[in-house]
């Protein structure tokens, strides 16, 4: 693990991610201001000592909203990744283990989901169920499924022909057991890296959906919606757009760096070098 922390990209990503997570957690206990109370008389105040990042059109403290928004972004992205992994990975592993027909059918279904531009389907889903964080999760989650299915399958296919799998088969293990004991642990790092990437994409996707007004709904602050609300006030209150935008950029950047670093650190090639 110490090798991990000497990787610059990993370290930076880790620290940023940690900071964002800490901020989200801290918001449960404390935020500079209460964001559920609208103080219209304080609206669109420029950043000041009282409000570091200024206030929004309802007089809410933007810093506090960003802190709470982090929760939403993280929760949506995390659960969406969870859905993707929870369904996609078993499917991919199954396809890799069974091959032939199962593989073909699963992968074609994958392609089918891939063929729908994700945002479009998200829009359709929210058209049915109405906008909201939960539906954003479902919409983003569905599109994580084929991603993880592909990664798990590709990883599985690469492991199956290895000799240690033959050895396990020669030891009388069935494909389910082999998948659990050998394939899954061996592609875990692959999944972890993909997980961070999807996590970052999830945060962007949530922001995109919220920006279209289809994501988290008031009074729950969300970074995407803050931007959505900011865009009509760019001239008089640019800070409303700049800070949430930066929050997204920094978080996504952090996660991507973390993913890159993880990939580096966990890559057996580079590990052997180190």
């Amino acid at each position, binding site marked *: 693990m110490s090798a991990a922390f000497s990787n610059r990209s990993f370290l930076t990503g880790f620290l940023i991610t940690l900071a964002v997570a800490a901020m989200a957690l801290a918001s449960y206990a404390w935020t500079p201001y209460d964001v559920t109370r609208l103080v219209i008389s304080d609206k669109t105040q420029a950043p000041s000592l009282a409000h570091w990042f200024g206030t929004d059109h309802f007089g809410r403290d933007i810093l506090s909203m960003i802190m709470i928004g982090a929760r939403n972004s993280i929760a949506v992205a995390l659960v969406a990744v969870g859905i993707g992994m929870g369904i996609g990975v078993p499917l991919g592993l199954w396809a890799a283990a069974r091959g032939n027909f199962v593989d073909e059918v699963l992968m074609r279904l994958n392609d089918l989901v891939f063929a729908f531009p994700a945002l479009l389907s998200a829009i359709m889903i929210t058209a049915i169920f109405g906008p909201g964080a939960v539906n954003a999760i479902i919409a983003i989650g569905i599109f994580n499924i084929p991603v993880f299915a592909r990664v798990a399958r590709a990883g599985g296919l690469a492991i199956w022909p290895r000799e*240690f799998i033959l050895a396990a088969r020669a030891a*009388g293990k069935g494909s389910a057991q082999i998948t659990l004991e050998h394939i899954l642990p061996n592609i875990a790092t692959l999944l972890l890296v993909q997980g961070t990437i999807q996590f970052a994409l999830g945060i962007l996707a949530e922001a995109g959906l919220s920006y279209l007004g289809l994501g988290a709904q008031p009074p729950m602050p969300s970074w995407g919606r803050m931007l959505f609300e900011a865009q009509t006030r760019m001239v008089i209150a640019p800070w409303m757009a700049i800070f949430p935008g930066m929050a997204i950029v920094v978080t996504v950047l952090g996660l991507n760096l973390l993913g890159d670093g993880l990939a580096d650190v966990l890559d057996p090639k580079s590990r052997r070098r180190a």
Partner: protein
Amino acid sequence: MNLLDIENLSLAIGDAAILDKVSLSVAPGEVMGLVGESGSGKSMTALTVMQLLPHAARAKGHVMFEGVDILKAGEDRMCALRGDDIGMVFQEPMTALNPVKTIGEQVAEGIRWHTRASRAEAEERAAQILDRVGLPPQKFPLTRYPHELSGGQRQRVVIAIACALKPKLLIADEPTTALDVVLQAQILDLLRDLVTESRMGLLLISHDLAVVTEMADRITILRHGEVMEAGDTARVLSEQLHPYTRQLAQASMHVPARRQERTAAVLSPPPPPPHKGEGNEALPASPAPLWGGARGGGEHIHGRSASTEDASPLLSVQSVSRLYPGRRTSLFGREAPARAVDDVSFSMQAGQSVALVGRSGCGKSTLARLILALDKPTSGEIGFLGETITNRSEADLKSARRNMQVVFQDPYGSFDPRLKAERLVAEPLHVLEKKPSPAERREAVAQALHEVGLSSSDMEKYAHQFSGGQRQRLSIARAIITRPKLVIADEPVSALDVSIRAQILDLFADLNGRLGIAYLFITHDLTVARAITDEVMVMHEGRIVERGKTADVLEHPQSPAAQALVSAAPDLHRAIAKRLREQG
């Protein structure tokens, strides 16, 4: 004057010292052999001459090529030398060619680059040189892609690239390791011809003493980046003055001492367990297994005695074929299916040690997988311990699995990198009817490790924490932990160094003697077959073409396939003898 003079070359990559004061020279028309175990720095020496070292590498000393100090030469100077005056054949023929360019382009490229010849001219010359290395353009048009060639053919292309401009110095880095013996012999002949023809200097790198002895006028022996001994090939190897030279030569020629009276050895009461770290010398005979389901030691004796004439064999393979469907050529058409294994029949008795030899791609591994019931035959039947194992479900195969284990070619690849040795070795215990408790499991693993000369403290290590030889021991431990009656070893030593290989062969011979386990040894290396087997089967294009006592087959091969194998196999004894004869 020497073509290439390396003096006191030291090389470090990052903080690691790779080469230490290496000196060697190559004269025009001379073959210099550079030998040494894997990782000794042979390739790095070669790459220094080419100035194609990895990024972090720093070299000190002198490398003079025709009066040019290569270590001081700039990139432009090197570009002019590379390919024109110095050619290099890289270690891996399979990956040394660009997969998306035709062989013609790749050969012609260097010619065009250095001579500014027109495309047509360059291709003309490329065709000539390809013809020269045995790839006549009529049969192998320039428009072929590398993947359309076999390994040996690709290696020829690589040699053609290196020799396209008739370099003064050719560096060949293990030019034949990936090839089977017959192909190896062809390539070596080719190199020899090129040297004599144009007085080219050849720096031949190999870890195979026999190969180098056949080829090289002089030899340099490298170990841990240092030159151990250098000089005239015949002299160095016959005198074996340096201890390491001796060690290397002995390992290359090593034949395990096989106990002729194995039965007696097994019958004798088990000696006390060895002390830790005693190595593989005095391995104990197997004490009675601790776990249920496996047979007691007594049964080995039965198997042993039965092996000589008992009518029911341990393994019987009857008219087994395995077809791989041919490639689809159109919606309806397919190529004829490839017969990887073609109507093979044979049987093995308990305790017998049989070698299966044959050229690369002849179907050995496929046959092994069929016997192991990891693959289903297209036709035919395989019986094991009197039961048919073809077309059985995984569950029905349990008892067969218990009695039949496998040791794979690549000791590293056959272990899950994420598991500790204990779990790895214990894996086959899975097939036992009664699952051992964790404590029993540990005990069984500890014992298996003992048997292969590892200590029980190794249980906590991961595969990558073992050396190559230790890893192969580990895989043998895994194979014998259920006390199988048959172990199928698919090229179990081809990935190992000569010295490690010798140790492992000893271990195999020893286990065979002590535990009465029957072996089916798959190899393309006749020395190995000779060393530890009673019988040998020669396989050619999916068929068994010859079978007999090992010594008989190797001394007097009957089938053309066997003859080709035997005559192509490098043999250190013979090579030294030949050299000495030549020098009179």
